[in-house]
């Protein structure tokens, strides 16, 4: 789960990391009040989960409170890469002497949290990693012990010469690690970490991604989720415990298992179609899940045909068949459905479907070819 900048900033602040004054606003009036309180020139930043906010006009300078209200009015409600801006962050415009990058990521290769620091900050760190990897210094932390003081210090020495700044940065490294662990993050990033002309070290922008598996037992983190920042169909799917990602094609896919779901999308493409979505109904699929899945897929007007691809292991194919029948009784599905199922209780599943005149296939290639053909005919 991605956090907004203002949320990530609040978590870093709570861990003791120095940031700029400022606050988040939902209206121009709120933005004006924050600008008046912090004084001087402020920066108004759109809070949306996309990169390139500045280029899209989502980050503006305002010299005073009145200008802050005007700029906030412009930014609030605007659409950046398909997402509407509902909140802006208002912070003082800092004078910047240097910019660096500090990131902490759960690294799958070393299986540990790994610090990445670079004195080339402020820019896209992936670009730095790709073009000049030598500019990034990495350090893996043993999660049994956490980051040691000498490790934090050695990372800070990568960034600064002045010892007061080195000490300040080392403290920030330790605090960042604590925030990472305390909030179940898979990524915590300060970009840029700046120094001001008067020598202070500050976190200017922050990004935190929370490990989705932590949310189950951390309702305090779950409330940070912003449904409005998600594709509406994806938010609905998440609430129904379905793993769903909307794509641009016209063949709707309902599959059990993430790997098979991806392979199904690939096969749709292989036979000349375009998948409309990724959807994994999971292992123990009740009829209810199937109904929700069909509701979400049929709500997309681009979908011209729907494919069920179910390989019953733990999933009982008769449960899925019952779900399909129940769904088509609850609401009218106006596009053709192709059903492939095999495995656990398939004889019963085929009987349930045949009773209502629905055929079922047992071969994945045959089913995909058929659904692609139907989608093409309807287009």
């Amino acid at each position, binding site marked *: 789960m991605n956090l907004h900048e203002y949320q990530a900033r609040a978590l870093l602040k709570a861990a003791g990391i120095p940031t700029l004054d400022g606050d988040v606003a939902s209206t121009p009036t709120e933005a004006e009040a924050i600008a008046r309180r912090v004084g001087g020139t402020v920066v108004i930043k759109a809070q949306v989960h996309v990169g390139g906010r500045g280029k899209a006009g989502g980050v503006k300078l305002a010299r005073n409170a009145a200008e802050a209200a005007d700029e906030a009015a412009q930014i609030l409600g605007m659409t950046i890469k398909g997402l509407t801006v509902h909140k802006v962050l208002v912070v003082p415009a800092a004078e910047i002497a240097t910019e660096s990058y500090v990131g902490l990521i*759960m690294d*799958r*290769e070393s*299986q*540990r*949290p790994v610090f990445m620091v670079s004195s080339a900050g402020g820019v896209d760190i*992936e670009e730095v*990693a*790709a073009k000049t990897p030598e500019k990034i210094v990495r350090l893996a932390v*043993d*999660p*049994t012990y956490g980051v040691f003081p000498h490790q934090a210090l050695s990372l800070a020495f990568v960034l600064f010469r002045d010892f007061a700044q080195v000490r300040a940065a080392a403290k920030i490294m330790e605090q960042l690690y604590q925030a990472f*662990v305390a909030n*179940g993050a*898979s990524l915590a990033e300060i970009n840029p970490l700046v120094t001001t002309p008067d020598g202070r070290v500050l976190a200017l922008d922050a990004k935190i991604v929370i*490990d*989705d*598996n*932590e949310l*189950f*037992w951390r309702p305090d983190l779950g409330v940070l989720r912003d449904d409005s920042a998600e594709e509406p169909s994806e938010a609905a799917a998440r609430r129904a415990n379905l*793993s769903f*990602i909307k*794509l641009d094609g016209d063949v709707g896919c309902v*599959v*059990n*298992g*993430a*790997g*098979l*779901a*991806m*392979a199904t*999308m*690939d*096969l*749709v*493409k*292989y036979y000349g179609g375009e*998948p409309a979505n*990724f959807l*994994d109904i999971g*292992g123990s699929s009740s009829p209810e899940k199937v109904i929700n899945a069909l509701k979400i897929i049929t709500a997309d007007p681009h979908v011209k045909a729907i494919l069920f691809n179910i*390989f*019953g*292991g*733990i*999933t009982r194919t008769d449960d899925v068949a019952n779900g399909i029948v129940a769904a088509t009784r609850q609401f009218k599905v106006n596009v053709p459905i192709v059903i492939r199922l*095999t*495995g*656990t209780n398939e004889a019963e599943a085929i009987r349930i479907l045949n009773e209502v005149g629905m055929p079922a296939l047992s071969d*994945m*290639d045959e089913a995909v070819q058929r659904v692609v053909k139907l989608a093409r005919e309807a287009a």
Partner: protein
Amino acid sequence: MSIFADGQTRLLIQGITGREGSFHARHMLEYGTNVVAGVTPGKGGQRFEGKVPVFDTVADAVRETAANATVIYVPPMGAAAAVIEAADAGVPLVVCITEGIPVMHMSRAMPFVRNRGIRLIGPNCPGLISPAGRAKVGIIPGNICSPGRVGLVSRSGTLTYEVVNHLTRAGIGQSTCVGIGGDPIIGTNFIGCLEAFQEDPDTDAIVLIGEIGGTDEQSAAAFVRDRVTKPVVGFIAGQTAPKGRRMGHAGAIISGASGTAEEKLAAFEAAGIGIMKRPADVVELLRARLG
């Protein structure tokens, strides 16, 4: 005969009295797996299905039954602790089925497991099955498998079943099928399985099923190029996946320019791995290589 588990396996089931654990325990017993014990704290002294003794701790179970493998069906919040308990009791093979374990829990558990020389499979995996030895350790349906000489390793569950099903229907049996799991941090990666299949005298060819995200498939391809003499065929799921989106599995995400299907397929190609364009291709590719 197979890798990791065979007819000599004495299996322990952690979480045997739970909803998932009891369901799959029955299937493992039906298949003919030698299930010697179960563990559920507080239920020591009971018998599962009237025959499998249940213990309070893994250490008790190992002492009383000489279990040499364990499969874990413990809910996500206690699953990493269950892995550590099994490793602490010295069980040499630990298979963790549980999905949804926080990645930090696994990051802490891994050094403990490694320091004791324990082989961990998973988490978030379907486990493994060796058909000839009737050893089913996990949730892979036994009825789609058949004994034979092809080894299969995969990051997925149902996609594995799809491929195994093609093999069995074509009369190509399997030595062992292993699902290594879809999480970012897993105990045994492709290389661990490839190494074992290469050494197994009863495996003639290997099927490798990967997906987008990470670099495990690229490392596996390099290992195949340098160290594997048996024929290998491979598949990568997620060729149509968009960047930056998690495709169900926590590990299946293309970050930046890395972890893409193209990158992985290029690595397969360079290592001489036969590329399956679709799951059904497994049969023809293997036949061409096995003669």
